[in-house]
C-alpha cells in the first residue's frame, strides 16, 4: 500500500461521501450545495495528489482483488497514462466544483440541489474510475455510472422541455456506443479467455488479425460516440448546453476525453502494432471532424451550443495527433510517433483547461442575462470586466495564439503532420497533407469564430436594455476562471517542460517502450527530435512583454501632450442604437455563404398581413435562418425508419396472442427432440 494508492482510494471514498451527504441534506439547500461542493473539492485534491505522485515519483500501482465471480473482481491500475488523465480530470473537477458552489446559488428555490450534489460527485468518481479500471467488466460498470450520472445532470433543469429531449438523445446515443464497446470486449474475451486488461495485453498473439481489425472498428465507433466524432456527435450540441455550466465544463472538457483515453489504451497499449490503415482512418476522421465542427460552430448563436461544436473540432485535432501516432508506429518511425502522441496528450490537457474556462465564462454571463442567445448580449465588458478578461484569454487560447497553451499543442500537432509529409510514402503522405491543410483551415476558422463570440458578447453597445443592470459574478466564479486563465498562460509558457513530461508518459505506453525522450528541457524550448523545428515560448512571452511595455511607454509619454476626447461613434448623422452594430448573423454570413455546399443554409420568410385576404400590406416578417441537419436526415432518420420497419415485420410473429406463443414453443420442442434423436 503506497502513498499514491492510499490517496486515490481516499478520493474514491470522498466522492460517494459527498454524494450521500448531499442527498441526506437535500431539504437544506445551502448545506446540500456546500457539502456536495466541499467533498468534490477534497476528492479532486486527493486525485491530483495521487496522480502527481505517480507521474513524478513512483511507477504505477495496481489494486487487484480477483474473485470467482467475474462481476465482483475488482482490478484498478494507475500507470503514467492513467495518472495523466486522472490529473486532468481532477484539476478541472476541482475548479468546476469551486465554480459550481457559487453558480448553484441561482438554482435555490427552483430545483433540488441535493440531486445536483449527488449526481455530480458520482459523475466525477465514475470518470476517475473509468481511466483506472483494469478489468473489462469493472470498466463497463463505471462507464455506465459515468453516463447515467451525466444523464441526470443533463436533465437537471427539468422544467425546460428542450433539456429533457437533449437528455433522451444523449441517453440513446451513449448506450448505442456502449453496445459497440461491449461487443469489442466480447471479441477480446473470446480470443483470450479473460476480461482482465493485463491478461489481454500479455496474450496478444492469440488474437487473429481479423478479430483485431474488428475490435478496432467497434472500439472506434463506441468510444468515438463518447468522444463526439462526426457522424456520431449529434448528442453533443444538445446535451452540453442543457447541463448546468460547471457540468458542461466537465462534460466537454474531460468526459469526452475518456473516449480518447480508451482509444489510446486499446490502439497503442493493448495492441502494440496495428496496420497503417488504422492511423490513416483516424487521420481522415480527425480532419473531417475538426473542419465540420468549427463550421457548425460558426453557424450557431447559442453560446453553449457553439462551444459544444468547438469541442468536436478540438477532438478532431486530438485525433489528428492520435492518427499520426498510429501511422508512424506502423511504419516504425518511433520518434515521430512519440511526437504525435505528445501532441494528442498535450492538446487533451489544453482543451480541458480552456474549454472549461470558456464554459465557465459563458455560464457566468448566462446566469446574469438569463439568455443563451449571443444576439441579445453586447457591451458586457463594461459590466463584467473580469469575466470578459478571462473569456478573452480563453478565446486567445482556443484560437492558438501565442504564448498561450493552445498554440503550443497546435504547434506540436503541426510538426507531427509535417513530419508525416516529409517522411512517409505516397498514399500516407497525401493523408498527412490533407490533415495539415484541414488543421490550418480549422485554426483560422476558430480564430474567426472567437472574434465573433467575444466581440458580439462583450464589446460595443448592449443590444438589450436589461444588460445595463447586470453586475459582475460572485467571487467563487471569478476565482475559478482566474485560476484556469493563469493555467493556460503557465501551460503555454512552460510548454517545453510539459512536453518533456508528456514524452515520458508516452514512453510508458506499450508500443513505445524504450524509445528516446524527445524534448530538451534546458532552454524550456520544445524541440523535435531531428532538429527540424524548435520554438521557445518563454522567450516569446518575455520579449513580447518587453516590447509591449516599451511601445506603450514611448508612445504614451514621448510625443507632446495630446488630449483624448470622448465622443460618440461616427453615426453618419443618424441615432446610434443597438441595431447599428454588427450582428452575429451578419458576422458569420460570409463564411456560411462560402461553405454553403457543406452547411446547406436555409432561409424561411413568413409574412403576416394586416388584412386577412389581401396580401398588399404586410404587418410583420419573420425570417428563419438555419443550417440543414444532414446527419439526422441522411443517417439517423433512415436508420430509425429501418429499425421501425424491421420491428413491424417482427410484429407478425410477436402478435401478443398467447396461443401462438404456445404453438411456437411446441414446434421448437418437436424440432429439438427430432434433432436430439437423430444425433
Amino acid at each position, binding site marked *: 500500500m503506497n502513498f499514491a494508492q492510499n490517496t486515490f482510494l481516499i478520493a474514491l471514498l470522498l466522492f460517494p461521501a459527498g454524494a450521500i451527504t448531499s442527498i441526506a441534506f437535500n431539504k437544506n439547500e445551502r448545506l446540500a450545495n456546500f457539502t456536495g461542493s466541499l467533498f468534490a473539492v477534497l476528492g479532486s485534491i486527493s486525485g491530483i495528489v495521487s496522480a502527481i505522485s505517480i507521474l513524478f515519483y513512483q511507477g504505477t500501482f495496481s489494486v487487484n482483488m480477483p474473485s470467482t465471480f467475474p462481476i465482483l473482481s475488482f482490478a484498478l491500475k494507475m500507470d503514467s497514462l492513467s495518472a495523466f488523465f486522472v490529473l486532468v480530470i481532477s484539476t478541472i473537477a476541482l475548479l468546476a466544483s469551486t465554480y459550481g458552489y457559487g453558480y448553484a446559488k441561482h438554482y435555490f428555490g427552483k430545483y433540488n440541489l441535493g440531486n445536483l450534489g449527488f449526481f455530480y460527485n458520482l459523475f466525477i468518481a465514475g470518470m476517475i474510475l473509468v481511466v483506472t479500471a483494469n478489468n473489462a467488466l469493472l470498466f463497463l460498470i463505471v462507464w455506465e455510472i459515468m453516463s447515467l450520472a451525466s444523464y441526470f445532470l443533463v436533465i437537471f433543469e427539468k422544467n425546460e422541455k428542450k433539456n429533457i429531449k437533449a437528455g433522451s438523445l444523449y441517453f440513446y446515443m451513449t448506450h448505442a456506443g456502449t453496445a459497440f464497446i461491449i461487443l469489442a470486449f466480447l471479441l477480446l474475451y473470446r480470443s483470450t479467455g479473460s476480461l482482465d486488461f493485463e491478461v489481454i495485453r500479455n496474450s496478444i498473439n492469440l488474437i487473429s488479425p481479423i478479430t483485431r481489425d474488428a475490435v478496432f472498428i467497434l472500439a472506434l465507433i463506441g468510444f468515438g460516440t463518447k468522444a463526439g466524432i462526426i457522424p456520431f456527435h449529434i448528442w453533443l450540441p444538445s446535451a452540453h448546453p442543457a447541463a448546468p455550466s460547471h457540468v458542461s465544463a466537465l462534460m466537454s472538457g474531460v468526459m469526452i476525453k475518456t473516449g480518447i483515453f480508451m482509444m489510446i489504451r486499446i490502439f497503442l497499449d493493448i495492441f502494440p502494432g496495428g496496420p497503417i490503415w488504422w492511423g490513416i482512418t483516424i487521420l481522415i476522421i480527425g480532419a473531417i471532424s475538426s473542419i465540420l465542427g468549427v463550421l457548425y460552430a460558426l453557424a450557431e448563436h447559442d453560446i453553449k451550443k457553439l462551444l459544444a461544436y468547438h469541442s468536436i473540432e478540438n477532438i478532431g485535432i486530438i485525433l489528428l495527433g492520435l492518427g499520426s501516432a498510429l501511422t508512424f508506429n506502423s511504419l516504425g518511425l518511433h520518434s515521430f510517433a512519440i511526437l504525435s502522441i505528445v501532441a494528442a496528450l498535450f492538446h487533451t490537457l489544453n482543451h480541458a483547461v480552456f474549454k472549461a474556462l470558456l464554459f465557465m465564462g459563458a455560464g457566468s454571463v448566462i446566469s446574469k442575462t438569463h439568455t443563451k442567445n449571443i444576439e441579445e448580449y453586447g457591451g458586457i465588458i463594461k459590466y463584467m470586466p473580469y469575466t470578459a478578461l478571462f473569456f*478573452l484569454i480563453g478565446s486567445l487560447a482556443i*484560437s*492558438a*495564439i*501565442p504564448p498561450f497553451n493552445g498554440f503550443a499543442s497546435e*504547434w506540436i500537432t*503541426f*510538426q507531427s503532420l509535417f513530419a508525416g509529409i516529409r517522411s512517409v510514402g505516397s498514399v500516407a503522405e497525401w493523408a498527412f*497533407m490533407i490533415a*495539415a*491543410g484541414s488543421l*490550418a*483551415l480549422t485554426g*483560422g*476558422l476558430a*480564430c*474567426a469564430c472567437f*472574434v*465573433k463570440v467575444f*466581440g*458580439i458578447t462583450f*464589446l*460595443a*453597445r448592449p443590444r438589450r436594455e436589461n444588460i445595463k443592470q447586470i453586475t459582475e459574478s460572485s467571487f467563487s466564479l471569478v476565482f475559478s476562471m482566474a485560476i484556469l486563465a493563469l493555467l493556460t498562460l503557465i501551460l503555454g509558457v512552460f510548454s517545453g517542460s510539459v512536453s518533456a513530461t508528456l514524452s515520458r508518459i508516452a514512453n510508458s505506453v506499450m508500443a513505445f517502450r524504450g524509445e528516446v525522450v524527445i524534448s530538451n528541457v534546458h*532552454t524550456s*524550448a520544445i524541440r523535435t527530435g531531428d*532538429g*527540424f*523545428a*524548435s*520554438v*521557445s515560448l518563454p*522567450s*516569446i512571452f518575455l*520579449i*513580447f512583454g518587453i*516590447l*509591449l511595455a516599451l*511601445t506603450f511607454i514611448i*508612445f504614451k509619454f514621448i*510625443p*507632446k501632450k*495630446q488630449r*483624448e*476626447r*470622448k*465622443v460618440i*461613434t*461616427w*453615426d453618419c448623422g443618424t441615432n*446610434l442604437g443597438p441595431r*447599428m*452594430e*454588427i450582428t452575429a448573423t*451578419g*458576422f*458569420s454570413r*460570409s*463564411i456560411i455563404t*462560402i461553405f454553403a455546399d457543406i452547411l446547406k443554409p436555409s432561409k424561411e420568410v413568413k409574412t403576416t398581413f394586416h388584412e386577412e385576404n389581401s396580401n398588399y400590406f404586410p404587418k410583420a416578417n419573420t425570417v428563419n435562418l438555419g443550417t440543414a441537419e444532414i446527419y439526422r436526415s441522411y443517417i439517423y432518420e433512415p436508420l430509425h425508419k429501418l429499425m421501425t420497419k424491421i420491428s413491424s415485420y417482427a410484429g407478425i410473429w410477436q402478435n401478443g396472442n398467447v396461443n401462438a406463443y404456445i404453438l411456437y414453443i411446441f414446434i421448437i420442442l418437436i424440432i429439438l427432440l427430432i434433432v436430439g434423436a437423430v444425433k
Partner: protein
Amino acid sequence: MQNRQGASIFQPYSDLKKLFRKDELISHDASWIFKFMPYILFSTTLLIGFALPLITTGIRNGFFGDFLVIIYLIALGTFFLALAGIDAGSAFGGFGSSREMTLSALAEAGLIFSMLTLSILAHSTNLADIVHSVVSLPLTSLLPVLLAFIGFFVILLFETGRFPFDNPATHLELTMIHEAMILEYSGKRLALIEWAAANKLLIFMAIGANLFFPWGIASNLSLNAILIALGAFLVKVLILSAGIAILESSIAKYRFFRLPDLLLTSFILSMIAIGLIF
C-alpha cells in the same frame, strides 16, 4: 497609366508625423481593447522583425525563428485588430472585421503551405536556415520554389491589404476590409496602426525576397557582406514593390466572393509544389 501626378514617395512619413501631433477622439462605447490594440499590433510587428533574416543570416534566432510562430504572431495582431473593429460599435467596423476574419481563415492554409514547401526543401523550419539552404539548391528544385512563391505572393497581397483583395486608398466604406476596422481611430493610435501596416508590408516583402530568392544575402557579419546584402535587399524589395504597383494599376479590386477562389488557388499551388518535391 492613370495619367496623374502622384504624391512624393515620402508622403507616408509626413502622414505619420502629422498624426502623431493630433488629438484623439475615442468613442464612449469603446473599451480597453480599442485603446490597447495599436500597441499590441505594433509590438507583434517588432517581435516578428526579431526573427526575420533581413540582410544577414549571421544572427540566427533559434528561439522563435520558426515560420509557424511568425504566422501565428501575425494572427495575434489580426485577432486584436478585428476585435477593435467591433469594439466601437459602428456597422463599418463590424463588417470589416467579418470580412477580414473570413479571408484570414482561408489565407492561413496557403501561407503555411507555401512556407512549408521551403521548409521541406531546407530540412528546417527556421527562417535563417531556410535562407541558407535555398541558396544552394540544385536547379531542379527551383520549380517548387517558384510555384510556392506565386502562392505566397497571393497571400502577401491579401495580408497587406493590396489589390485585388482590398484597395488601400479607397474612401468607400462598403468596399473596405482593413481600413473599415480602423475607421474610428485618430491621432497617435492611428499613426501606430499605419506604421504597423507598413511594417507588415516590409515583413512580407522581406520573406518573399529573402526566403524564395535568397541570393545576395550575407552569411556572416562582415562589413563587405552586409553592404552587398543591403544593396541586394533594396533591389529585391524595389522589384517586388514595382510588381505590386503594376498589378494595382492594371486590375480592379475583385468582388468579395471571388476572393476565396483566389486563396484556394494559392493553397493548391503550394500543395502541387510540395507534391513535386517527392
